[in-house]
């Protein structure tokens, strides 16, 4: 029986090493909670800018506010405001993501930038940058605001699906949820921001809490 346990232990060890050497496991659930919170704040600012509620339908608001350049509010036209708001949300989310992940890595005694972290970062960055540039072109060249929310959701979902090979496998399901939301948002084009808030805000927070409970408690 002793030998039995010994072999079982060996298999567990092999499995752990294979995981550890290919996946970045220090990603913190709290990063998700923080990113979700910033996303909700960012979305709330857009509603404030438009003087609207989540269920009003953006197409109507776009028409009312943005005809012939639209009025300026807070010193910015709508497009500039959207870009500034989105950039601020992204920077806050990324920084807090780094912070909580760094804390978790430190607690586990692992370096933040090991080989698997670099691999994860690269596999996150490439599809995300593609999606980001794609959306910027839609926004700046074609002034097509309505497609931004569905497109960011879909690109983000595909990114997570891809990245799940390099970190905790659970983010695969978050990715699938984001893709489904993105497709629904494409159908209901006028309510993009509502779906965006659910995808980047609510889902991140729910998921972050779930991951925190599962891996960090």
């Amino acid at each position: 029986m002793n030998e039995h346990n010994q072999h079982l232990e060996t298999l567990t060890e092999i499995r752990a090493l294979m995981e550890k050497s290919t996946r970045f496991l220090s990603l913190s659930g709290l990063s998700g909670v923080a990113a979700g919170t910033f996303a909700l704040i960012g979305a709330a600012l857009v509603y404030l800018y438009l003087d609207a509620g989540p269920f009003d339908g953006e197409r109507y608001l776009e028409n009312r506010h943005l005809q012939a350049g639209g009025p300026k509010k807070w010193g910015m036209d709508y497009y500039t405001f959207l870009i500034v708001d989105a950039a601020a949300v992204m920077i806050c989310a990324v920084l807090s993501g780094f912070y909580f992940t760094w804390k978790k890595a430190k607690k586990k005694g692992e370096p933040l930038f090991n080989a698997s972290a670099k691999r994860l970062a690269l596999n996150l960055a490439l599809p995300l940058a593609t999606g980001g540039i794609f959306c910027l072109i839609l926004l700046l060249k074609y002034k097509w605001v309505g497609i931004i929310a569905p497109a960011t959701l879909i690109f983000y979902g595909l990114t997570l699906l891809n990245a799940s090979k390099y970190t905790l496998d659970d983010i695969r399901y978050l990715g699938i949820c984001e893709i489904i939301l993105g497709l629904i948002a494409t159908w209901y084009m006028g309510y993009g921001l509502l779906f965006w808030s659910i995808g980047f805000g609510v889902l991140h927070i729910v998921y972050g809490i779930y991951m925190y409970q599962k891996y960090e408690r």
Partner: protein
Amino acid sequence: MKNIITHLNKAFDNRIRLGIMSILMVNDRVTFKILKEMLEVTDGNLASHIKALEKEEYISIHKEFVGRKPQTSYATTVLGRKAFNDHLNALEQFLKKRD
């Protein structure tokens, strides 16, 4: 029972050698430094186990220059992959018999 025992490869009865193979099985190429970090062993200890696996022709060694620094990395050979898989299968068989 005897049959299974013979399938358990002697080259893998050491924890560190098994660890080296585990890491190399799922990564294309791994440097000495990363192996050392992952397995938490000393340079000399790791080097001797690498040498043993190399002698069996289970792993191959690649030397290249990154900038001006020489860098050594390791990968599994076809023979090594087969031996490792056989070893895992033998372990699995052993555990199944006892359950």
